[in-house]
Structures are given as structure tokens and as C-alpha cells.
């Protein structure tokens, strides 16, 4: 057995071990990668930056813990930005395990907003965000396409009360809020086909500004909607989250994680090259025989 055919039959566990070593050493090494901000992310940041205090944005948290790696940093950076700008936020979670994700994000954000901080040279006092005044969490309902359509008429049709069981009419910030006409922006942070429903059943029918935060796997599929102006911005994967963190001057897990991406990608590229060289060599030899 020659070297290359041996290489081709290498146990996959060695490949796994190499990935672990590369990622761990990159994680503990001290270096940075540049964050080049793209227009599709900047559009979302600029839109939120231009909103007046008191305006309402709608954040649809449509992902499960499986995608939290990429999407939680987006939610954290974007919602913190919104709260620091004194915007009000309505949350929904139309994904099966989404409510727990919102619940966790809200607990963490309540803590971090208590601290005074300076972002992009502007000082923000720490503040207490209050359920019902600064935000409302509507919760989960199954069959997202129908839920999205019904919310265009009135949130109360399917959400007579919020996640914690408080009737919507007795929530201060929801008193005059009925449907998508009362929000300034809808951000869908999603890991699945719910995004398609937000585009077709939500934005397409009720015409509100829609921004997307997507997992890397989905990102490429939504560029057509960006050019047709059905969505106004797009954050793709950990890279998009890192860009938002960079814009909001609030570095977190995404920016830290992008460092590790680079060596991992180089390793994968190396594997592709080795695999191809091995493939070509074995093919060449087989032809000789």
C-alpha cells in the first residue's frame, strides 16, 4: 500500500482530532482577524440607529438551541442596541424551542443593561428594562404561516395574552399596538423555513421593513430578496453577527469566534487540497496500470 492510498484510508477520527487541536489552539492563541462590514449588515444597524426613542421594533426569534451559536450573538447585539437607544421591543418565538431562547436572552440582557457603558464614544447610563414597558414577549404558537398572517390583523387574535400569561390589553406598551402597522422594523432571526413565511405571508402582504438574521447555511439563499427590496438587510451566520457586534461597538462571542474560524477554514481547505492531490495521484497510477 503506498503513501497516498494509505492517506485516503485514514481513520476519520484523526481528522476529528486535528480539528479539535486547531480550534483549541486558535481559541487560546492571541490574534485578531479584521471585521469587514458589509452593506447588508450595515443597513440593519443604520436603520435601528435612525429610529426615535419609543418606537417599536419586532424581533422574531425563530431558532432552537441548535443554531444558538450563530444567532444568539445577533439577538444579543441587536436587542441590546435597541434597548440602549430606548426602543421598545416585541418578541415572538415561532420555533418549537424558541421561547426558552428568548427567555434566556432577556434574562442576560436585563443584567447587562443595568451596567453603564460607552458604545462608539457615546455614554449610556445603566437602566432597568421592565417587562410590559420596554418589551413584550408574546410567546409561541404552532403553524407559523398562519400565525404571521393573523398577526397582520391583530396580535390579539392568536396572542390574547403574552408568554407569561398577562392579557395583552393590560400590558402598557401594547395598549395602542395592534398589528404590523404599529412597528417600525421587523427583524427575523431564524434558522429555518419560517423566514420564507415572514417574506411571503408577512412582508409580502403587510409591507413592513423586514431585516433577516440567518444561519450561514441559509444565507446565500436570501440574496435575491435583498436585491428585490423585499428585505432591507441581511446578517449571515457568525460573520454577520460579528459585523453587527463591530458596528454596535459591543464585541461578544461572535467576534471572538471569528478568530477561530480562520485556522479552521484553512485546515478544511488543506484537507480539500490533500484529498484532491491523493485522488489525482491514485487516478494517475490506476491509469498507468
Amino acid at each position, binding site marked *: 500500500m503506498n503513501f497516498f492510498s494509505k492517506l485516503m*484510508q485514514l481513520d476519520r*477520527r484523526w481528522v*476529528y482530532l486535528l*480539528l479539535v487541536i486547531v*480550534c*483549541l489552539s486558535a*481559541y487560546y492563541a492571541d490574534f485578531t482577524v479584521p471585521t469587514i462590514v458589509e452593506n447588508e449588515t450595515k443597513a440593519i444597524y443604520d436603520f435601528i440607529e435612525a429610529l426615535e426613542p419609543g418606537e417599536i421594533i419586532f424581533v422574531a426569534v425563530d431558532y432552537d438551541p*441548535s*443554531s*444558538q*451559536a*450563530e444567532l444568539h450573538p445577533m439577538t444579543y447585539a441587536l436587542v441590546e442596541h435597541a434597548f440602549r437607544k430606548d426602543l421598545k421591543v416585541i418578541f415572538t418565538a415561532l420555533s*418549537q*424551542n424558541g*421561547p*426558552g431562547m428568548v427567555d434566556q436572552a432577556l434574562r442576560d440582557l436585563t443584567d447587562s443593561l443595568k451596567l453603564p457603558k460607552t458604545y462608539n464614544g457615546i455614554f449610556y447610563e445603566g437602566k432597568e428594562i421592565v417587562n410590559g414597558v420596554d418589551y413584550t414577549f408574546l*410567546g*409561541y*404558537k*404552532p*403553524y407559523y*404561516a*398562519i400565525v404571521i*398572517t393573523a398577526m397582520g390583523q391583530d396580535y390579539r387574535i*392568536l*396572542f*390574547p*395574552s403574552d*408568554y407569561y*400569561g398577562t392579557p395583552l390589553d393590560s400590558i402598557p406598551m401594547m395598549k395602542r399596538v395592534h398589528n404590523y402597522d404599529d412597528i417600525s422594523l421587523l427583524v427575523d432571526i431564524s434558522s429555518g423555513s419560517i423566514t420564507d413565511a415572514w*417574506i*411571503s*405571508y408577512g*412582508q*409580502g*402582504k403587510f409591507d413592513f421593513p423586514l431585516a433577516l438574521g440567518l*444561519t*450561514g*447555511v441559509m*444565507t*446565500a*439563499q436570501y440574496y*435575491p430578496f435583498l*436585491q*428585490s*427590496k*423585499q428585505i432591507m438587510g441581511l446578517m*449571515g*451566520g*457568525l*460573520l454577520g453577527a460579528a459585523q453587527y457586534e463591530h458596528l454596535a461597538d459591543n464585541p461578544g*462571542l461572535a467576534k*471572538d*469566534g471569528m478568530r*477561530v*474560524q480562520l485556522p*479552521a*477554514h484553512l485546515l*478544511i481547505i488543506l484537507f480539500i487540497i490533500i484529498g484532491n492531490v491523493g485522488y489525482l495521484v491514485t487516478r494517475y497510477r490506476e491509469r498507468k496500470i
Partner: protein
Amino acid sequence: MEFTTFLWTTFAAFLTLAVFSFLYKDNPMYKFAEHLFVGVSAGYFVIILWHGALVPNLFKKLADGDWYLLWLNASEWWYFVPFILGVMMFARFFKKSSWISRWPLAMYIGISTGLAIPLEMANRVNRQLWAMMEPINWSSFWGERYLDIGSGYSELLIFVGTIAALVYFFFSKAHTGAFGAVAKFGIWTLMLGFGASFGFTVMARISLFINRIQFLDINWGQAAFDASGTANENYHAGFQALFWAVWLIFLVYAVFEFKKYLNSKDKPSQPESTQA
């Protein structure tokens, strides 16, 4: 950090490592984690559906009725209808009566497809076609920058690429001659698209692993060793002991597996199958 919180974090770290141990091979710890996940997530879903949908959307609507009148005297008595239709779904459990469950199902399918037709047509097909038909920027055809997205040639490429890719999807006509040439350009475009998708997918998958490293280091490791910056007034030696105990479990398992491996090497085993 409270010790109980750390206890929970340690359990989470144990589960994380247990799932990763599957990469070596299937083992009891992974099986435990897997079955635990199925149970907890099913229970979670039940609770979310109950408190999040069933109670507010149905039970509270019928709450002012009386059960012995089947809630028909409730002020919003018409919610009795979806209740009955929903219960009809359970007819699936019995072979003889399973056809009853088709009625509510038919209602659901009718409404959701009726909702879909105009909206999908308008937003996936029409608006995409509209965007494709925008006039091309001939005044600055070569653009102002390196690979300018707003330049005329980019816009032309989008138009031609989309048409060509659509031609490729059209299988009713053989891909030969001029039609075949256009289809070929279409598949090139599609491959570039799939490549971009693949590049993003690699990034996405790696970031899932990075997140777990971050969890194990920041939430667990740093808390166990009271790293600087996370002042922990409750800190005591128990934190570190727990941390090492978890690693010990996996170490013991690794030694066990290694011994098994050595034993299998000593014994003259059956010839390995030649299939790769």
C-alpha cells in the same frame, strides 16, 4: 456564581462532553444524553403548547361555561367548534374511525393552501421577476470599483444568469444546441451559487463547534478556576473538584476503551473485512 448554578453548569458540561464522545464511538454516556434530550424536549413542547396555546386560545375562551353543559353556555361558545374538530384528530388512533380525522385535516389544508397560492405567487415569483426586469445601468457599464455590484455588467450577469439557470431547470426539452449552451451557462451559475452556499455552510458548522468551546471555557472552566474578572464571592475548592471529577469520568472511560483496544489487538481476531 452560586454553587448550585455551577452544579448545573457542570452537568451541562458533562452532557456536552458526553455528546462529543460519540465522535470516538457510540457509548453509554452518549446514549444517556440522547434519550434525555428526547424526553426533556418532548416535555418542554407539551408545556409550551399547553400554557402557550391551549390555555389562552381555547380553555380561557370557554372558561365561563360549565363542563356539564359541555361549555356550550360560555360567552364565546363558538370555540366549542375547533375543540370538537381538534378532538376528532384523535380518531387516528382507531383504524375504523380514522377517516373522521380527515375533516379537520381537510379544513387545515384548505385554509393553508388557499392562503399560500396568491402570496407565494406574488412574493416568490412575481416580485422576483420584477426585480429581474429592472433596467440595466448602461451609463456605467464597467463600474467604478473592483467588481462593482451596481455596475452594468453585474446587472446584466444577474439577468442572464437567472434566465440561464431557469433554462437549465426546464427539462421538457433536450439540452442540445443553443438551448443546451444556455443551460450550460445556467449550471455554471448554479455551481457558483452552490459553492458560495457551501462556503457559508462550512463557516456555520465550524461556528457550532466554536460555541461549545466558548461554553466550556467561559461558562464552566473560568468559573471553576475563578479566573480574573469574574469575581466570585462564593468561590471554594468544590468548584475545582467538580470540574476535575467530570474530566475523570471521561478519562476513566478513555482508559477502559484503550484497554479494550489493546485486548482486541492481542487476540488473533477475524480478518478485517476488505470493504473500505
